[in-house]
């Protein structure tokens, strides 16, 4: 709410990291660890954290492909001449726009109705301008002498009980996002804005955390852990892609408000975390973005998992954002979800320690 109506662009690359944490003592005693199969995940090279695109700092500048918006593929946008030669490397956006429209608890809802008004996905409520507005001085204004009063209906998930929704009156100095815009306008605007977003992503400075550590010896084929020991999951999402901090550029502005990260652990369990969570990492050296050995032992404080059974699991993470844009005088929102590529994770048996 606080900043979403400001003009802004969030520019960054969201990198997802998953690290399997092995207790140092156990790992050292585990022969499998020495051979690499139970090596702490983040000790190894980029593929270990390959839930995220690896960003190669020394590679030749390239451009990622365009985003897909629903079924409509948006072509990559040509680089601006001045910036083309010096553009930093950004790997292909690793996920796709999957949803455009209004949803409540993953259920599609109308973006506007004659009865309720316009849906604001940031608060899951319908906003309807009161017509006529009460004269200033009416207690409903609560002392305000400008702005607009709206009726707000938040019972959005059950149509037959909508009559039970509490009636509220809310004052706002600016129109809610998505307010009084046809979906056609919103979609056109989103499409146009996403074209610019492609530019923004392409030209985004590479986050330090996305740089690729050097290859380690004895690299296992994929990260690994041990049954019963904590696995930490975190999404390396820059602040501007989570907390509505934003960046403005030209006539388009974006802000992203993170909603959740849904970790599919590959064994039938999903762990849904409401934040990008705590990384099992400390920047140690300039060329080592992650140093798993310096992290704290024990389970993740906010987003972790323990595999109950040994096996090799294909894990993915799906991030959901609310994205707000302001473009050519139009504001709107859309829900943006991105899912990582599958990252295989080997979970071994602790009994190996005793062999």
């Amino acid at each position: 709410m606080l900043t979403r109506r400001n003009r802004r662009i969030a520019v960054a690359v969201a990198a997802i990291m998953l690290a399997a944490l092995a207790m140092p003592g156990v790992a050292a005693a585990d022969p499998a660890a020495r051979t690499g199969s139970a090596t702490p995940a983040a000790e190894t090279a980029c593929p270990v954290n390959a839930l995220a695109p690896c960003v190669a700092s020394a590679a030749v500048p390239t451009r990622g492909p365009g985003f897909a918006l629903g079924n409509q593929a948006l072509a990559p946008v040509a680089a601006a001449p001045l910036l083309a030669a010096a553009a930093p490397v950004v790997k292909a956006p690793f996920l796709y726009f999957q949803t455009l429209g209004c949803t409540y608890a993953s259920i599609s809802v109308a973006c506007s109705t004659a009865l309720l008004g316009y849906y604001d996905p940031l608060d899951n409520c319908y906003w309807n301008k009161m017509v006529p507005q009460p004269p200033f001085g009416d207690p409903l204004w609560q002392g305000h002498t400008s702005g607009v009063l709206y009726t707000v209906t938040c019972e959005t998930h059950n149509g037959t009980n909508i009559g039970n929704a509490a009636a509220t009156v809310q004052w706002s100095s600016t129109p809610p996002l998505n307010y009084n815009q046809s979906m056609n306008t919103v979609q056109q605007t989103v499409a146009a804005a996403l074209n610019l977003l492609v530019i923004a992503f392409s030209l985004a400075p590479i986050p330090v955390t996305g740089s690729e550590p050097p290859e380690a010896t004895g690299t296992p084929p994929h990260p690994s852990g041990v049954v019963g020991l904590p696995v930490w999951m975190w999404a390396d999402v820059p602040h501007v892609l989570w907390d509505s901090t934003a960046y403005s550029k030209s006539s388009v502005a974006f802000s992203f408000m993170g909603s959740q990260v849904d970790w599919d652990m590959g064994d039938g369990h999903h762990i849904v975390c409401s934040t990008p969570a705590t990384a099992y990492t400390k920047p140690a050296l300039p060329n080592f973005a992650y140093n798993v050995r310096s992290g704290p032992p024990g389970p993740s404080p906010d987003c972790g998992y323990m595999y109950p059974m040994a096996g090799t699991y294909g894990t993915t993470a799906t991030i959901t954002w609310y994205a707000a844009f302001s473009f050519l005088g139009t504001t709107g929102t859309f829900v943006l979800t991105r899912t990582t590529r599958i990252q295989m994770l080997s979970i071994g048996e602790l009994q190996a320690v005793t062999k």
Partner: protein
Amino acid sequence: VRATVALTTACAAFGSAACAPAGPATPGFSPAAAVPRATVPSADAGAVNTAKSAALAAYNGYLSAYVTAARTANWHDAAIDRYTADPFRQQAKLTLYSYAQNHIVLTGRPRSHPVASSVNTTTSPHSVVLTDCVDASSWRPMVRSTGKPAADNAPTRYAASILVVQYASGQWLVQQVTKATVPSC
């Protein structure tokens, strides 16, 4: 940059279909919003009487329009708009919408006895608080498809407070309504 005025919860106050429908849609207004509109003894008697008459006409107009709309659970009924303003208008339509969704209509009509209990014609906006004793015993919900009475445990008599406000157009519109959950008249 948003401020919220919580007005009411619905079920007990509105008697919507999901919780034993009966009686008119009567969302409430917070007492705090109405309190400043006290009668001012020094107000011009003619203006006070005019305000009372206009407020009563607005309320009676609303009630008549709502009774008609509720016969078919027609939440689109524009007649309600002529006599009401938000937030009450929105809530009345939400209640009618709820009836429609639950295949409920209201038959008959209530007996209403509104009187003006306070009038403000000295500060803007002018407003009148009405009180009404509504007898809804012959105004009951029924299942539209069968014509049989719908499940109903709402009181058949209840007291209501109605806030009617004069808007910039000069119109007097029913802005907020509260219905006592316990019959008191």
